[in-house]
């Protein structure tokens, strides 16, 4: 039983492995509870440079500059940050055809249906409204969807979201 529970969560190593597999150079981020355990592992990863920002809208702009400069960034924010970053997603991702993977902590996500958290209720509607495709990652078994997102964003020159629908395991 314990093993089954352990296996059914997302471990930070799985996510970092996906980032390395896709040659990510920078993670532009603002911490949230879903990425808490990821922080230490990313700090120890010499091939990835972390860029902390003060507000989520900055992530899209910093990523745009990195991309222009030849780097391969991702952004890592919570769904509440997606709402905050709305105009930057419009002007600096969609309008400029930026092939950006956005890793998004899915606050309020539940498989039980009802959630009292409006951040969880609204995020998929917002992504639909912008025409941004997304993939849900809940466990290690889903981690390869991150590579699917990278392939799609680069093939279509569009932002693609990966919704992290769980908190990371230690």
């Amino acid at each position, binding site marked *: 039983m314990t093993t089954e529970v352990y296996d059914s969560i997302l471990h930070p190593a799985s996510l970092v492995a996906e980032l390395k597999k896709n040659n990510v*150079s*920078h993670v*532009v981020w603002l911490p949230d509870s879903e990425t808490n355990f990821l922080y230490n592992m990313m700090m120890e990863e010499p091939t990835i*440079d972390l*860029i*902390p*920002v*003060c*507000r989520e*809208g*900055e992530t*899209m*702009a*910093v*990523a*745009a*500059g*990195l*991309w*222009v*400069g*030849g*780097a391969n*960034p991702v952004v890592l924010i919570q769904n509440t940050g997606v709402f905050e970053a709305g*105009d*930057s997603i419009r*002007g*600096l991702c969609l*309008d*400029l*055809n930026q092939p950006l993977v956005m890793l998004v902590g899915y606050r309020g996500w539940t498989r039980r249906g009802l959630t009292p958290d409006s951040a969880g209720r609204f995020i998929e509607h917002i992504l639909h409204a912008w025409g941004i495709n997304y993939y849900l990652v809940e466990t290690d078994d889903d981690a390869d969807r991150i590579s699917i997102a990278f392939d799609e964003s680069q093939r279509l020159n569009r932002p693609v979201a990966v919704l992290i629908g769980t908190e990371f395991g230690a």
Partner: protein
Amino acid sequence: MINNTDAVRVIDNNREDAVIVPTMNAGNVRFGLPTVTSNQNLDLPISGAMGKASNVGLGIALAQPGRKVMVLDGDGSLLMNLGALVTTSTKAPKNFYHFLFNNGVYAVTGGQPIPGSDGVTDWQEIARGAGYAAVFSFDNLEDFTTGIGEVLAAEGPVFIHLAVEPEIENTPVQFRQRASRTAQQAYQEVTAALAGDN
């Protein structure tokens, strides 16, 4: 105070192979960088980005550490995204030069005063407090022309406050003079230039 066109001309004259990221008045097609530029392939104008020009410049500076990046910001723009100063100083790129065109107004919406324009805001103290490595300020063209060499010899991130004359843009948006290239074209050209394709 310094004329807007004169200010961007001094910067452009000293750019060498720097990428310049202008926004608002500094990027205006009638009196900003596009009117004087000597290397459009390395100009990345940002408009309507709610103060994010310095963030874009930071990304380029981190990806291209061997090349200077000059951000030409507006005072109203920077107020929209003041945390960007701390984001920049946290990564402390040595090749980052942040020029603030302080005209005291929202020039593209008719010249309404920005918050703090009545003298309560000290931009140099804000930049120092945010952690910029060097801070300069100029309020006349002669001093700026003389001092630009020292500015660009300093190790970044460098903040340069410029007191510039307000030039108000009252023309409705749909009737304003358009840039010769779209934002998408500019991004493609600068990306290609930095990749060595040009």
